[in-house]
């Protein structure tokens, strides 16, 4: 056992520390930790962090490991701290439409518990549903439902955050309206494990909609873009509006380009909205999916990134959908023309975000440099128009070269000051936020 793992083993109950080859599967963007710890209580999380702060060991918080390869690679990883064993629901009062759970609970398990009361948390981040609540909140991940239902910052009412030096902060609360002091909770959401470990999370829930329907339109990309823009402005609540363009190499006989309009309302209202949508489209729907089939289609949208080597998220205003698609096309040259499915595009039309999902990147002499050059050019183009490019996933070397995110500009010093406050020893996911 290595020295670091040995010290941790002395401090934690038996079976909570893993090292050696078993730590390899917990590599964070190719960086294998010296030890992986699985604390089972908030006090144990605090103990590990206090110790790491004293010793100067770097710590990357994790859940089930779903996001370890996402975002910018951290500089060093001594310890991966997984809260996967902290997965209990600690307070669920259906009448309040709120639930408090430990951060390690999977979104799937949480959904099952809420099902019993016909309630749900309308968050559908990309990736497998077993991903933890804490990871979703920590990365502020969301999916097609975010435009209408909100992203983690709109759902989360309170958290327990254990800071880098082991302080336990109860931020926010468990009521839906709360302005008691500065909203520091917002800093923790989307902080990518650089400010603390989210041991407990209280989130609001919604009643499950009585009907779930998806109306599908098919056509070529340009037609679908025009249709999407028209449908986006109908005066009715659309739960999601997704444009899905399959990869070049999976089209023959396989999936076709689609525009998926999801409606989650009471059944009478669903019929009416469906009528408004088809009237606006001026064309008959290709297909209509109800209930389970509708939900399953969006399950596939979440899974769109599964197995991809490169995922790039481009964003402009919803009214600039054509432009963002043009920028996406500039990235296609990076795909391997002979292997995998090619390049899929998935657009959250209402929020102007488009994911470019590449099965496998073309290799060859200097491929990383060439890819970096193309991605940087597209990023500059989007930023010049007020948009952004985020590298959600890619080969570590490439992500390190271009940065997962763009520049934080003049806000960077302010963010660094906040980071020091939460993590004085600088041990939490150092370098994860590349601009700090």
């Amino acid at each position, binding site marked *: 056992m290595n020295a670091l793992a040995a010290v941790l083993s002395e401090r934690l109950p038996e079976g909570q520390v893993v090292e050696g080859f078993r730590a390899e599967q917990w590599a964070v963007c190719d960086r294998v930790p010296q030890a992986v710890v699985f604390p089972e209580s908030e006090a144990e999380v605090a103990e590990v962090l206090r110790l790491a702060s004293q010793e100067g060991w770097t710590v990357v918080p994790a859940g089930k490991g779903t996001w370890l390869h996402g975002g910018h690679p951290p500089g060093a990883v001594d310890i991966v701290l997984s809260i996967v064993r902290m997965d209990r629901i600690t307070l669920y009062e259906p009448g309040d439409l709120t639930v408090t759970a430990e951060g390690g609970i999977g979104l799937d398990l949480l959904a099952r518990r809420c099902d019993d009361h016909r309630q749900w948390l309308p968050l559908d981040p990309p990736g497998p549903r077993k991903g933890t609540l804490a990871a979703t909140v920590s990365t502020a991940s969301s999916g097609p439902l975010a435009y209408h239902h909100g992203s983690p910052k709109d759902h989360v009412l309170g958290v327990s955050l254990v800071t880098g030096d082991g302080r336990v902060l109860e931020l926010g609360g468990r*009521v839906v309206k709360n*302005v008691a002091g500065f909203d520091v909770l917002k800093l923790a959401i989307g902080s990518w494990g650089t400010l603390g470990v989210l041991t407990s999370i209280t989130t609001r829930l919604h009643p499950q909609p009585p009907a779930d329907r998806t109306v599908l339109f098919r056509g070529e990309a340009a037609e679908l873009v025009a249709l999407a823009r028209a449908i986006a402005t109908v005066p009715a609540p659309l739960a999601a509006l997704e444009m899905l363009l399959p990869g070049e190499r999976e089209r023959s006989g396989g999936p076709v380009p689609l525009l998926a309009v999801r409606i989650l309302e009471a059944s009478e209202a669903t019929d009416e909205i469906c009528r408004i949508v088809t009237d606006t489209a001026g064309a008959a729907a290709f297909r209509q999916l109800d209930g389970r089939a509708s939900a399953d289609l969006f399950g596939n949208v979440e899974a769109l990134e599964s197995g991809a080597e490169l995922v790039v998220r481009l964003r402009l205003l919803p009214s600039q959908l054509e432009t963002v698609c043009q920028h996406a096309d500039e990235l296609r040259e990076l795909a391997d023309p002979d292997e995998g499915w090619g390049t899929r595009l998935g657009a959250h039309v209402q929020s102007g975000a488009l994911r470019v999902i590449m099965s496998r990147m073309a290799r060859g002499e200097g491929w990383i440099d060439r890819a970096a050059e193309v991605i940087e050019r597209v990023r500059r183009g989007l930023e010049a128009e007020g948009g952004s490019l985020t590298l959600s996933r890619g080969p570590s070397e490439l992500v390190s070269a271009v940065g997962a995110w763009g520049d934080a500009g003049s806000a960077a010093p302010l963010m660094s000051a906040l980071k020091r406050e939460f993590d004085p020893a600088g041990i939490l996911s150092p370098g994860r936020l590349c601009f700090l």
Partner: protein
Amino acid sequence: MSSPLSSEVTADLRAIVGERWVITDPVRLLAYESDALTSYRRAPGAVVFPVDTDEVSQVMVRLAQAGVPVVPRGAGTGLSGGAIAGPGAVIVATPRMNRIVHLDRESRLALLQPGVINADLTEAARPHGLFYAPDPSSQSACTIGGNVAENSGGPHCLKYGVTSRYVTGLTVVRYDGEVLRLGGLGRDAVGYDLMGVFVGSEGCFGIATEIEVQLLPIPPATRTLLAMFDRLEDAGEAVSAIVARGLLPAALEIIDRETIQAVEASIFAAGYPVDVEAALVIEFDGIEAGLDSEAEEAEGCCWERGARDVRRARSEKERLGLWQGRKNAFGAFGRVAPDLFVQDATVPRTRLPEVLRSIREIGHRYGLRVANVFHAGDGNLHPNILFDRSDEEELARVEQASREIMAVCVEAGGTITGEHGVGLDKRAYMRLVHSPDVLEVMRATKKAFDPWGGMNPGKVLP
């Protein structure tokens, strides 16, 4: 008596914003001595009215050089004493910054200056079929800048959420005049959500000089009900029952007997029966199809919980009539007692009945009149204590009772303020809900934005 700024600083400010846009005349400064919570009164050293981001920045640079603290102020409709300044400080007021810069119908967003009045934004968006959702009671007077500072709510937040849900981008001027651009709908966040933490920072971090907000399509139809109850707790239980059914009304508002009597005795009389213990306003909105069945289901919940009567609005005129008692409650209190102590605690919705009982008991014990008018669906209580400030003994009882009410709400898992903010008024209660470590982190966050300590000093933190 106001101690005026040095004549040098005043002259420089006038050079930046124009002669008439700096007020130093002590008589005119009296208009700025309080916000809508009139128990705190302090006239500022001066009031400055810049017109855009650039002028705000120049004003701040000059004031920071002179070491003069700054208090941002919109319409002064706040209820926590947050927008008042002492004689040594300057108010930077936003009424001239009242332009809607840009409205993008397709992206459903508006870019505006902070002095735009909440209701004016909705008015401007209406021709595009859009509206701005957060609707504080003061929406015909309050500014969006003030709403951002307070993270304001309103009766329809049950369905739509509060201000922070709708702010997508901010341009912020810090005390030293630096201009920060935070967020923006068309781009993904980079790093910590500074925009999110700025919303609700009560003028302590900087001044928002441009605000980008998300608009929503106007719901084409509404259904409004008014249910009367002989017990306040029954009204609270009806609220829980409606929510438990999976219904999501746009608003669920309760007005108690004390409030109804005040309203009915005033010029705002709405025709509510004065002998009921509580009236519950229920509103649904959305597309026409299915609204009737939702309204019927909610009505059923009220009957099951022992409602004496349920009225349904058949026209827009009737709808406004049903809302009248709720909307004019605060105006009506003025007739009943010279002073009003407004509270704003929020509790988990299911704890409403027991908390309401405790509040009544506390009122009785201290011999005080407590009128409840509140956002029941959100669990956001507004127990209003009616009293006379000139009676010192009564004032002492009011303060003691208030503290007890706060403690009951916190004990029930709630918080000390749901939408009015802390300002000066609730600083003393902050320790009821936050640990020393959390308060320290708040202090450090303030310091990251404002290391100079020049923004709205003495507010929010105990």
